């Protein structure tokens, strides 16, 4: 591994993208992720890359399409309302099967909401967001180090499957500073060729077309099926962290910032003799269905407690994965409010004691 530095989350994401061989950034200012484009504006010229501040997220995401279509590793970073504007392009990017990375530093919503950490964009990221039958690979880091570590993975997965990858970060991860270890720099010239790219024939091949348009229903259906086969194939890329699930009776399910808080809760509750566990999906799509299904089938597991910074979006996938064989309880905070470890310990303890427990604060 490379050097150890103290960095703000949003800047760390930007540097990690560069080290993953990305040399092109297109974006539009929005809080709480502005440090990423600001960093890119300074840093990309140093490594021979291009930084473009677009006129809108609509334009930025279509520039991403053009750059990815030309065969380059490319990234944009934005936050919830900006991602809503990008969903048109994300559908086209998925439809034209272009690899690129989109970082969503999620903030409170809906509408303008606020600029504090939230997880209300789970459905948008995981269930599509844009029009048509497509999927985006969604990675959900829970620390700044992990946010750095997943960037190479994000670009590799995007290239491997020719599919957009969303990194679902949040306002806490974007704004916090932590000591991190940066990976080694990858030379973009060392990356595999993209023979499908529309980067000029240059006397080497026949024309390439970057396209999601097919007027004949039977032909479009074939294209849909080919893409669906790919999505089924992507299922093998599931990443998940399990802690204490071997003997756990009560299992937390959480991702991102929340999961990190729960790790503190786990330690405290284990010391008090409670057999608690944690399932932390790192890929939100593909979802770790099998892990949760296997746990639901274990006699020792009494219930799951899903905790989110929303009214329960991942909750639906947890229920589907466990086929409701065990109770799936829920606790959520909204509006950018982040629960404390004491609060979550109290909620879990009351569930264990069989008390009536609220599903949220306020």
């Amino acid at each position: 591994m490379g050097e150890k530095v103290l960095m703000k989350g949003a800047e760390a994401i930007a540097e990690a993208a560069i080290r993953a061989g990305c040399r092109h950034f297109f974006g539009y200012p929005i809080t709480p992720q502005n440090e990423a484009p600001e960093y890119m504006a300074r840093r990309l010229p140093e490594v021979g890359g291009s930084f473009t501040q677009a006129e809108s997220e609509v334009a930025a995401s279509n520039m991403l399409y053009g750059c990815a279509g030309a065969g380059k590793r490319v990234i944009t970073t934005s936050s919830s309302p900006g991602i809503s504007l990008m969903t048109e392009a994300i559908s086209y990017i998925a439809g034209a099967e272009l690899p690129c990375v989109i970082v969503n530093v999620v903030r409170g919503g809906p509408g303008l909401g606020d600029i504090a950490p939230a997880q209300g964009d789970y459905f948008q990221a995981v269930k599509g967001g844009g029009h048509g039958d497509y999927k985006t690979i969604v990675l959900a880091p829970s620390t700044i180090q992990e946010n750095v570590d997943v960037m190479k993975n994000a670009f590799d997965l995007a290239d491997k499957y020719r599919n957009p990858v969303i990194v679902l970060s949040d306002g806490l991860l974007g704004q916090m500073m932590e000591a991190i270890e940066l990976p080694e720099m990858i030379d973009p010239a060392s990356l595999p060729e993209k023979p499908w790219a529309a980067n000029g024939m240059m006397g080497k091949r026949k024309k390439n077309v970057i396209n999601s348009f097919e007027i004949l229903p039977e032909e479009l259906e074939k294209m849909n099926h080919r893409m669906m086969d790919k999505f089924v194939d992507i299922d093998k890329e599931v990443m998940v962290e399990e802690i204490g699930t071997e003997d756990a009776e009560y299992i937390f399910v959480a991702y991102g910032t929340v999961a990190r808080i729960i790790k503190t809760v786990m330690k405290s509750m284990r010391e008090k003799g409670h057999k608690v566990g944690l399932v932390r999906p790192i890929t939100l799509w593909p979802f770790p269905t099998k892990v949760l299904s296997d746990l639901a089938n274990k006699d020792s597991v009494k219930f799951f407690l899903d905790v989110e910074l929303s009214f329960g979006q991942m909750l639906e996938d947890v229920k589907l994965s466990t086929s409701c064989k065990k109770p799936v309880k829920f606790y959520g905070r909204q509006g950018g409010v982040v629960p404390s470890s004491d609060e979550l310990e109290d909620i879990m303890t009351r569930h264990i004691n069989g008390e009536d427990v609220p599903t949220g604060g306020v």
Partner: protein
Amino acid sequence: MEQITHYPKPLSENPIPYCPGCPHGIIHRLVSEVIEEMDIMEKSIIVLPVGCSTLATNNTFNFDTMQAAHGRACAVATGAKRALPDRVVFTYQGDGDFASIGAAEMVHAAARGEKITSIMVNNGIYGMTGGQMSPCTLMGHKATTSPFGRNADTHGFPLKVCEMLSQLNGPAYIARTDATTIPGIKKTKKAIKKAFTAQMNGLGYSLVEVLSTCPTNWGMTPVDSIKRVKEETIKYYPTGEFKVVEGLE
């Protein structure tokens, strides 16, 4: 027999996918002739957004093609050009795509002086969707969404793209021509060549607006359509060069 003309290599010999009497085929050919004469086919990338030009995506041109979302061609071309500054990247858009839904993208590509070229085919109507009013539909003209004729009170006024963009610092070359007369066709070819030259010399953004017709949706014969351009369109949309940056001549 002596062969005096030939199919330009950048244009495929597949049937042109447009309605009878549509000038798109002429303009496609002009673009292809310029690309062949400038010997830039191998490094050209065309961006085709949504509208009638979408039909050219797969089988019409013989060089690299990107299909873009409605109105987003200038953004897609910007992405491709920033990735590959030595390629010739251009968009081919209708007036609805370019001047309405793509207004933000074209203004800012022009303002940035993005080294791309746009060819905007202005026939004052949404052809692909069946003849709705476009940003360039002339006053009084009937369309399916202006059934009593375009009027200022309800619809406002047709947008003058060349006049607007020529006020900006970013563009290197801006011209309006027509594809409905022999001199117009010749001037269109010259303008496209100049626009590509501006791009290749790194001088900035270039635009050629080409006045065209839509016999199908105008509900006119091709001949009457051409007459209408001469008698009405050109009066509101005068042809000529609106901006030629120093060093391009």
